[in-house]
């Protein structure tokens, strides 16, 4: 570890802290329909969209209608993406003449992009036409992120409401999130990335002669495409699906340390800002900061462990020079880009898995066992360490409800959250959301790990590392993260289908109980705070929230983690590698 590395981590963290209030305030104004500086441009566009689609923007929705609108929208857009992929060989903007995407892969990919997961069982540059990338995948990058933000705001409205049946209008929230939050930054950010060398064109792929031919191989194909426009929303919407297979490790997606900083910043900015929106809309900014502090603590703990584990190097290479020097970044550099080094690789890995982004600038499979454990645990905690845009906020609010419930049990009073009594139905919904997540991961990973014909046959590494690869895949899919540990051939009928199902369940079977909880909270009367009320604005609340998140994660996943990365760590120190 170096002072320079820590300084870069501190700078990044300071930037996230600094953007939280202004962005949070802006989002409050957007979703409360107050005037913003973007209104002169966006309001006419918004009105035209409603006119065209017949949406009545003054109409409020109950949680059931809000949920049904989300499901209908997702079903139709998922079917549209499936069709685009199956028919891409007949459609324009396909200069490479790429064929139709196979049905199982098309199902997996359409589920993946609809759920904001962006798990990719394919190589982008050799599978998807420019039209599929733009009209199919990039479109979903916008709307799946906008849907997440809409849902988080609906949940916050439920908390803030007093005896109200409605939680907003899904179509209005979706449109405003896209036009006010996602689109403007995507335009400016794309130009910034182009200035750093990210490509943006419709050219066929370049063919160049190798300076140093490798036997029969004398030329190289260099993929092109409309990359920059997709790159920004990939991070800003915490989508993570790369234009190229190497994702943000590819020099055309992420060429410089500055572009790397922009991309990392974009991953966490909206999710951090939403904590301020929570405080703003519920009238308790201190509560927003208390939630922010819990996220920040877990984030810093993760990045510190990963940085320590990777900078320490590989014990099997003891005796070789793994120290930091002018010509050597030191530590475990396998699978990392020299232009980013260890600090910016682990920072990216922690941010991308704390959020449900899934973009990568290094290969997580090549991390040391403890370094690789951090991204895995981040996802297992439910993607609430700032989390995906919107998804992180409603995810942590479910934990907040559970924390308040546990605090209520401790003092023997009916628990309250910001003046709302937490009753049996609310806890039932919170538990449904929390329990479905490990159920899907552990059942599918378990079946895969005992099935040599279709499960273990896809694993590249034996032993505990192979177990981690399968576990990571299902965790990433169910958590809607989308990053891959690699080392597993996931483009098979079994993995494509079950990972697709995991993504759909991981998204919607958590959203539905969350919306039910929001609807229930919105209808409640406000109870004045008393001496027995557990305050949700103090460091004690933050500590309890962190404990609940960690204990639930540890209790659920410790057995399987001990068979994977933990035992691999001890075996590596004993001289065995996988």
């Amino acid at each position, binding site marked *: 570890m170096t002072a320079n590395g820590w300084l870069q981590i501190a700078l990044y963290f300071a930037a996230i802290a600094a953007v939280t209030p202004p962005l949070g305030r802006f989002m409050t104004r957007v979703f409360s329909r107050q005037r913003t500086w973007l209104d002169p441009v966006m309001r006419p566009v918004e009105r035209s969209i409603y006119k065209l689609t017949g949406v009545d923007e003054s109409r409020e929705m*109950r949680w*059931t209608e809000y*949920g*049904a609108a989300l*499901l209908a929208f*997702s*079903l139709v857009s*998922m*079917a549209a993406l*499936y069709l685009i992929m*199956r028919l891409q060989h007949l459609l324009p903007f396909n200069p490479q003449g790429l064929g139709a995407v196979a*049905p*199982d892969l*098309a*199902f997996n990919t*359409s*589920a993946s992009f609809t759920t904001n997961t962006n798990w990719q069982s394919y190589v982008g540059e050799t599978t998807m036409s420019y039209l599929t990338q733009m009209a199919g995948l990039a479109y979903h990058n916008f709307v799946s992120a906008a849907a997440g933000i809409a849902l988080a705001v609906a949940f916050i409205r439920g908390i803030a409401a007093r005896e109200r049946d409605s939680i907003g209008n899904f179509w209005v929230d979706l449109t405003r999130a896209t036009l006010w939050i996602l689109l403007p930054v995507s335009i400016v950010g794309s130009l910034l990335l182009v200035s750093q060398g990210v490509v943006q064109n419709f050219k066929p792929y370049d063919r160049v002669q190798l300076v140093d031919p490798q036997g029969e191989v004398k030329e190289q194909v260099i993929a092109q495409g409309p990359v920059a426009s997709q790159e920004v929303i990939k991070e800003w919407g915490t989508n993570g699906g790369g234009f190229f297979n190497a994702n943000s490790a590819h020099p055309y997606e992420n060429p410089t340390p500055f572009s790397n900083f922009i991309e990392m910043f974009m991953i966490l900015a909206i999710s951090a800002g939403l904590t301020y929106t929570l405080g703003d809309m519920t009238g308790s900014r201190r509560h927003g900061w208390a939630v922010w502090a819990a996220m920040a603590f877990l984030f810093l703990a993760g990045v510190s462990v990963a940085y320590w584990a990777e900078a320490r190097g590989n014990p099997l290479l003891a005796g070789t020079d793994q120290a930091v020097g002018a010509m050597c970044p030191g530590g475990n550099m396998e699978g990392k880009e020299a232009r980013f080094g260890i600090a910016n690789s682990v920072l990216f890995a922690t941010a991308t898995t704390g959020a449900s982004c899934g973009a990568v600038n290094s290969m997580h499979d090549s991390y040391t066992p403890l370094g690789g454990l951090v991204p895995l645990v981040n996802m297992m905690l439910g993607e609430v360490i700032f989390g995906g845009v919107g998804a992180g906020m409603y995810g942590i609010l479910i934990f907040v409800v559970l924390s308040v419930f546990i605090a209520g049990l401790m003092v023997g009073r009916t628990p309250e959250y910001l003046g709302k009594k937490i009753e049996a*139905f609310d806890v*039932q*919904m919170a538990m449904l959301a929390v329990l479905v997540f490990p159920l899907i991961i552990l059942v599918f990973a378990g079946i895969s790990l005992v099935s040599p014909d279709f499960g273990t046959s896809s694993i590249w590494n034996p032993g505990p590392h192979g177990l981690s690869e399968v576990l990571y895949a299902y965790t990433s899919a169910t958590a809607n993260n989308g990053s891959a540990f690699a080392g597993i051939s996931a483009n098979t009928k079994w993995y494509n*289908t079950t990972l697709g*199902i995991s993504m*759909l*369940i991981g998204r*919607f*079977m958590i959203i*539905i*109980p969350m*919306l*039910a909880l929001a*609807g*229930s909270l919105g*209808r409640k009367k406000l109870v004045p705070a008393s001496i027995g009320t557990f305050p949700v604005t103090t460091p004690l609340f933050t500590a309890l929230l962190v404990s609940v998140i960690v204990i639930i994660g540890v209790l659920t996943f410790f057995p399987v983690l001990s068979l994977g990365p933990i035992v691999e760590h001890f075996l590596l120190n004993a001289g065995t590698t996988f």
Partner: protein
Amino acid sequence: MSDLMFFGLGVLFYLLAFGYVKAAERLRGGRDGR
């Protein structure tokens, strides 16, 4: 055939999800439940 199967799988999932919404509402005691 495969296309139909995956389409069916997707539609089945969303039907289940709509059913989940209805079931959660019923558990709450319906529209007027307290």
